[in-house]
């Protein structure tokens, strides 16, 4: 489903990561963890074309991007990849000048040229799925953070992506609101959605992930099943990371 080869990205002199190889199968749920600044967000953003890698290649479904393509081919590849991936941001980024429903139906009508009626029908069913059909006419400013994030998930799903990318979707939320977002994500997981999730919610990672990938110092240090990773981390860096997490529970 996703195949990343020898991916590298730097900002000026700062090498964020190098030689990243990643294979994700359809239906797999991968949780990406690592210390702050280790490049998790940057990697996710590369998979969605929000950041342009310097080297390597990315294949998502039948779309391929690689660093040696010419500019117009890259542009086309990014466009194609974006139609296959949905992205959920830490800060929700709902469009404040549109109601919940308008947020959800905008991209399908503009990008996929769906009729308004058709988009509304799908949009309403997605809002129902995240439990917010009754809020469809509210503007984001009148929704709680958890509700906003659920609308943002519905908005991404409206484009019928094959893969969902989540970048710390609950980090900006009060602890009592994280649950409602996580349960929507769990539901997606049980429906077979392919997902890559950056999160500090280790309980979620343990319960839902098929695989944990641990990134640090610009590399994938280790990966394995949640049981392997949490019980028997292979590298000293991972052990240190887990110790730190344990010593500051519930901080995001």
């Amino acid at each position, binding site marked *: 489903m996703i195949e990343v080869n020898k991916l590298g990205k730097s900002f000026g002199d700062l090498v964020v990561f190098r030689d990243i190889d990643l294979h994700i199968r359809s239906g797999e749920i991968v949780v990406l963890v690592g210390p702050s600044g280790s490049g998790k967000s940057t990697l996710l953003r590369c998979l969605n074309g929000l950041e342009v890698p310097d080297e390597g290649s990315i294949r998502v479904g039948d779309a391929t991007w690689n660093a040696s393509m010419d500019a117009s081919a890259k542009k086309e590849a990014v*466009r194609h990849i974006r139609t296959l991936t949905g992205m959920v941001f830490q*800060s929700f*980024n709902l469009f404040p000048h549109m109601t919940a429903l308008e947020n959800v139906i905008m991209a399908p009508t503009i*990008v*996929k040229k769906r009729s308004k009626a058709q988009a509304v029908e799908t949009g309403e069913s997605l809002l129902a799925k995240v439990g917010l059909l009754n809020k469809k006419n509210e503007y984001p*400013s009148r929704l709680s953070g958890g509700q906003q994030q659920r609308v943002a998930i519905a908005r*991404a799903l409206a484009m019928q992506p094959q893969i969902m990318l989540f970048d710390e979707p609950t980090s900006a939320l009060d602890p009592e609101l994280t649950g409602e977002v996580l349960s929507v994500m769990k539901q997606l997981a049980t429906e077979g959605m392919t997902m890559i999730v950056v999160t500090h919610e280790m309980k979620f990672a343990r319960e839902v992930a098929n695989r944990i990938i641990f990134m640090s110092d610009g590399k994938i240090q280790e990966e394995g099943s949640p049981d392997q990773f949490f019980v028997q981390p292979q590298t000293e860096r991972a052990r240190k990371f887990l110790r730190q997490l344990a010593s500051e529970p519930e901080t995001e």
Partner: protein
Amino acid sequence: MELVTQNFQFLLTGAYYTLLITIVSMFFGLLIGMIVAIARLKGNWFVRNLAKGYVSIIRGTPILVQIFIIYYGLPDFGITLGPLTAAFISLSINISAYLSETFRGAILSVSNGQTEAALSLGLTPWQTMRRVVLPQAARVAIPPLGNTFIGMLKETSLVSVVTVTELLRSAQLLIAQYYVAMPFYVAIALMYWIMSVFFSSILNRMETRLSKAY
């Protein structure tokens, strides 16, 4: 007072030209200003600096000089414009430089996350601009735009120097005819004021409408 009522029709014609010049210049000013703002934000090095130079020159020179250059200067290059056309062009250009700064600030005030969310949904950069960034920027820009517009209404009086018979020049012509100044000046002051108040209230209404989501 009687003189004013007798010549009211003439003053109204002047007011009509004042309005016409304001609205036409504002319209083209908005258009050019938007293009300049986008050029400054999204253009390559050359386009960015071209736009920056344009804004700097226009803002750094008196509007009267700009009007004179367009009306009296351009004929040296074989371009002769009627007074009204010269007024439209010089004021549109002048206002566009100020508006482009307003737009630029307003566009920059929309968080980058908005652009990223739109792009990640598959919108093109242009669709993102039109559907997501500009509507939010408009809300930020409306109050300063309103001020510019009202300022424009008053600045049109400057084009009386190139014999456009707008409101100020209408009064001056009447004064030359009757040798009394005060009633005419007071009358046009009132007319300027009424137009300003009228437009302020329209702009207030637009502002309320645009901010209903917040």
